[in-house]
């Protein structure tokens, strides 16, 4: 793999950027692999990378029905934070945060991780009490966080309406300074390039259409390019996970819903942090390019249509304009949807299944981008060892029968 560097950039500039190496190969599928990862989103690619890097398992294929990073990985609003309430999820997201902090160096790929901080606003007394509780819990877990009052919020975000005149006045916020945003495509591409360099086969336009299971043990997968064998298969297919589980005769406690995002025309820099409000329900940041990146809520009904409803967009824009009257005349450039797989307790599933060797990593719902490196890291360890990694173990599918749910609705950031 040709390493990227400042010197290399200058060298290629002099040659008019005409001979950059391809970022990854485009191999033909082998008849079998040690491990197959289904789904070439950030989580699947990260899993493949850590399998090769940390566990020396390089005979790995990532099967992607479309193109790498074409799912939710490059459809999200790029918010990265680790201020979750419960110990189990705090551990998981903070594990990811620690990886984020060195990720560009590790992958030799600029993922543009920008620790500009995240505010979660409170508009009612109860919001503020929840915020205090969560920040205290974060600090007990060694995760940075502060409770700000309205003045503190105003001084961080001068363009926000923090006055008492607002319909839902801002009373304060939780503030995680280490949180921020990252360039989502670059995360997929960075992991893809690094995994490819370690020998992982990235197979695009390869759709899994069924599983080969014998005596309760996974043997491989059926695809539109023929059968591929493997004794270990990890499914990381986000919104499509129920469909895949169905092919293996499994049922997951998931519902798939469209979730929307929109970006505005580019503006000069006006907002240098991330603002989220659960109460009026909108979240916003400004990309390095200048456009406002705005997230909506999920549509209430199940859907696989990768487009969302107008009432949801309207509702979100009401919230944004409520917080930022200054944006009321900004034009929106683009809007799109992704299909997210929501879990009853707003927490992911990282789990073995009744089929030996078949694992699922799904249910991240509206908030899995921030977990990408941590999810890949612990999932790879679980696949390599055949035992769920201690950080992943509480997220087993068993919790829906044991009752040991991890209820993160309050920290999930998006109402669902």
């Amino acid at each position, binding site marked *: 793999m040709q390493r990227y560097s400042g010197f290399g950039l200058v060298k290629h500039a002099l040659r008019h950027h005409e001979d950059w190496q391809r970022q990854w190969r485009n191999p033909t599928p082998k008849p079998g692999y040690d491990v197959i990862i289904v789904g070439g989103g950030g989580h699947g690619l990260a899993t493949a990378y850590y399998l090769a890097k940390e566990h020396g398992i390089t005979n790995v294929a990532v099967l992607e029905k479309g193109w790498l990073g074409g799912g939710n990985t490059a459809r999200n609003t790029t918010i990265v934070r680790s201020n979750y309430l419960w110990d189990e999820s705090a551990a998981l997201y903070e594990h990811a945060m620690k990886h984020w902090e060195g990720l560009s160096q590790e992958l030799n790929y600029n993922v543009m991780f920008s620790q500009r901080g995240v505010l979660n606003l409170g508009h009612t007394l109860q919001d503020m009490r929840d915020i205090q509780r969560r920040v205290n819990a974060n600090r007990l877990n060694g995760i940075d966080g502060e409770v700000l009052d309205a003045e503190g919020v105003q001084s961080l975000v001068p363009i926000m309406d923090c006055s008492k005149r607002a319909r839902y006045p801002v009373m304060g916020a939780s503030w995680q300074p280490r949180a921020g945003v990252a360039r989502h495509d670059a995360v997929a591409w960075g992991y893809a390039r690094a995994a490819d360099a370690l020998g992982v086969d990235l197979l695009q336009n390869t759709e899994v*259409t069924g599983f080969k299971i014998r005596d309760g043990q996974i043997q491989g997968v059926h695809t539109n390019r023929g059968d591929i064998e493997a004794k270990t298969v990890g499914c990381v297919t986000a919104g*499509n996970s*129920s*469909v895949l589980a*169905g092919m293996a005769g*499994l*049922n*997951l*406690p*998931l*519902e*798939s819903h469209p979730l929307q995002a929109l970006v505005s025309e580019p503006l000069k820099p006006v907002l240098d942090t991330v603002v989220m409000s659960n109460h009026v329900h909108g979240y916003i940041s400004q990309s390095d390019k200048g456009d406002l990146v705005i997230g909506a809520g999920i549509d*209430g*009904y*199940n*859907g*696989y*249509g990768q487009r969302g*409803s*107008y*009432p949801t967009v309207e509702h979100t824009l009401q919230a944004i304009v409520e917080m930022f009257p200054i944006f009321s005349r900004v034009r929106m450039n683009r809007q799109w949807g992704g299909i997210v*797989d929501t879990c*009853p307790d707003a927490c992911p599933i990282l789990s073995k299944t009744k089929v030996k060797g078949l694992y699922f990593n799904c249910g991240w719902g509206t908030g899995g981008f921030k977990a990408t490196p941590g999810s890949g890291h612990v999932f790879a360890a679980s696949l390599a060892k055949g035992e769920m990694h201690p950080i992943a173990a509480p997220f087993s599918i068993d919790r*829906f*029968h*044991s*009752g040991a749910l991890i209820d993160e609705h309050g920290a999930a950031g998006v109402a669902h």
Partner: protein
Amino acid sequence: MFHIYCPYCEELREEEEFHPKGQAHIARPEEPDACSDEEWGDYLFFRDNPRGIHHEMWLHAVGCRKFFNITRNTVSYEILETYKMGEQPTVGAEHLAREGKTDSVQVAESGQQTVGASDAAQASVKGAQA
């Protein structure tokens, strides 16, 4: 924007008047005290999530405030029928099959639906109606 026919108001109204309430026809286990943890978990948390025909419950929240059911295609978003509580759907998986749309589409069972992953739970709700 959906235009939804409320079977009680007998009128087409806009989506914003309604709230979706999840999968329809989920039967509470008949003998709760005799349920295993697995059966309870299935009843509470496991839902059909088909790429295709889905029977779901909606509330006419700012209209007549009554619950009713919709059969909807979760891929095309087409609403195939709406019907009152206590009634059974007339459109099911075979509807898709008839139209030759079953390719890579996973369909829920029509009519009586079971809710869970485990065979035991499925057996325990068989015959029950919501």
